[in-house]
């Protein structure tokens, strides 16, 4: 026996070492929660290597900043001009989108939908990878000490990146969405078809579980569906790059990641999500319609003093307009609620003042908003007469400006434009 072992000593040791490693693997696999049982060893390895990575990243960023902030400023003026133009275009787009969003929120609230919002994020620097082409993981410089926990979503401005897999004291391991073992609940933006986005051996993304009889075009956006309970619904995952027949009855859909997964430098970790019912801001569109209509109606001559008094809140389309009772108009930003009250109370200045202030005080959202909806219609119906009431009301409403700021921001922006346009009248 000894002679046999001596003769095949190398082979015996090889088998022994392999056997020990297989045994260790078997123990980890059997416990399945291998991550916990090998945690200490992993911490040692990661903590030994991440300080160097952190240092290199710091040095690299430092030299890069030095170059970009001091030496490479050529063309900044032109770029600045270009960016300003871009901002103007985006402002216009923002107005349109905020109107759409307001409408969507109103409709969602009617259906008592609950939305998930990203409440809090932590910015993190990517400092390294897993050191293997077969697993797509990265290390970030935020760990348990920074509030990291497993299964937190990691995103960039471009789209989703992955989820936190393991957390160490000063760093965390992130499993990217193009790893073969990862899966993201996803849906197609236009067709709303749902599936699972997985990684492949080549590091590509594919959308699984879409039946072959569905028609999907390249270029369609893929969003997170929220079904995995990790990524909030609606975050960009990628765009469909190729559709072909897959195995069995499913399509093979290749997806180009929205985030540049191969060149990640900074990421955001979603540390807190909130689920809440969207608040209906129903008054805005109607209020806006009222403003527009008011502008188109015959206007009365301006009374500068009154207008000045009525407009501090920046509201007044109707105030300076024919919309006399524009009491409502004056209060337009809280606008329509006021208009509604006018019609209901019969419009004496005193009553108006009282009632209008009421929403002002408690105008934290819903009341004011819902009121505005009805108010707008009131404003419309009242528009024709009211001229005589204009001045008293506006005078009474002077204290009102205090209420204006309490209005929600998005509605504000939409109701403001008419007000500024009115002043010229």
């Amino acid at each position, binding site marked *: 026996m000894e002679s046999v072992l001596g003769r095949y*000593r*190398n082979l015996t*040791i*090889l088998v022994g*070492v*392999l056997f020990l*490693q*297989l045994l*260790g*693997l*078997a123990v*980890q*696999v059997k416990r399945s929660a*291998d991550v916990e049982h*090998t945690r200490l*060893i*992993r911490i*040692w*390895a*990661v903590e030994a*290597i991440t300080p*160097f*990575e952190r240092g*290199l990243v710091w040095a*690299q960023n430092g030299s890069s900043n030095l170059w970009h902030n001091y030496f490479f400023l050529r063309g900044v003026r032109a770029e600045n001009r270009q960016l300003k133009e871009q901002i103007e275009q985006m402002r216009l787009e923002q107005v349109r989108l905020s109107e759409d969003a307001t409408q969507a929120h109103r409709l969602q609230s009617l259906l008592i939908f609950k939305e998930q919002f990203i409440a809090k994020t932590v910015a993190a620097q*990517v*400092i*390294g*990878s*897993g*050191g*293997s*082409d*077969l*697993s797509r*993981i*990265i*290390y970030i410089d935020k760990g348990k000490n920074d509030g990291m926990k497993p299964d937190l979503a990691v995103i960039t401005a471009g789209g989703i990146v992955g989820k936190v*897999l*393991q957390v160490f004291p000063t760093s965390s*391991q992130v*499993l990217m969405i193009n*790893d*073969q*073992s990862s899966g993201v609940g996803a849906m197609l933006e236009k067709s709303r078809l749902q599936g699972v986005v997985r990684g*492949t*051996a*080549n*590091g590509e993304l594919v959308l699984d579980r879409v039946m072959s009889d569905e028609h999907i075009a390249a270029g369609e956006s893929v969003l997170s569906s929220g079904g995995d309970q990790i990524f909030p619904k609606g975050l960009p995952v990628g765009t469909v790059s190729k559709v072909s027949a897959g195995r069995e009855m499913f399509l093979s859909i290749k997806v180009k990641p929205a985030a540049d997964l*191969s*060149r*990640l430098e900074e990421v955001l970790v979603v540390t807190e999500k909130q689920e809440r019912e969207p608040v209906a801001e129903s008054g805005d569109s109607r209020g806006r319609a009222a403003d527009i209509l008011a502008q188109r109606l015959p206007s009365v001559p301006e009374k500068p003093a009154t207008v000045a008094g009525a407009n501090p809140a920046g509201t007044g389309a109707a105030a300076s307009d024919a919309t006399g009772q524009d009491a409502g108009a004056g209060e337009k930003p809280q606008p329509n609620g006021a208009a509604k009250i006018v019609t209901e109370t019969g419009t004496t200045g005193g009553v108006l003042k009282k009632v209008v202030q009421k929403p002002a005080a408690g105008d934290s959202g819903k009341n004011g908003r819902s009121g505005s909806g009805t108010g707008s219609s009131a404003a419309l119906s009242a528009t024709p007469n009211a001229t005589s009431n204009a001045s008293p009301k506006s005078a009474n409403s002077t204290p009102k400006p205090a209420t204006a700021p309490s209005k929600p921001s998005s509605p504000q922006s939409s109701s403001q434009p008419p007000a500024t346009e009115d002043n010229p009248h």
Partner: protein
Amino acid sequence: MPITYTSGEQIEVYRFSIPVTVGVPLLALFLQAFLPRRLPFFSIFDLPLLVTIFFAMARRNPISGLFTGAAIGLVQDMLGPYPIGIYGIAKTVVGYGASSLGAKLDVENVGARFLVTTGFYLVHAAVYFTVARGMVNLKLDWSWTRGILAGLANGLLGVALYFVLDKFKQRT
């Protein structure tokens, strides 16, 4: 690319200083973890594997080779998301194989090094996938195209890397 069979007397066995023995594998592991984030194409390379092959072939001692491979592989496992031991097993086999081969063949010339490195890359991948799929039940897909391209790329890098590492060799 001649691969010549050598007699025992022709074989030169090398050794390395302790800083090189410890530092080079650690540097390889560090670079493997760090560079792919900055240079995405670098993820196709497996520096720890190349270092394993180099040390194994230079020392020409199977026991030393298999322990070097096991140590490097296990540390690489610790940095990854999967159970510890998959890379360990694969690199143990490669370390043993490369040192055994180094003891019998002249693997000092460029052609031999390229072929040996490419071959061992594929062996490494085969062992890794076998263990990962068969034992750990990981759902990994093997791509022949990518595997062969990666093998050739590692072969080329290996030739260049071995040329640099040759400077650290010390004759016994």
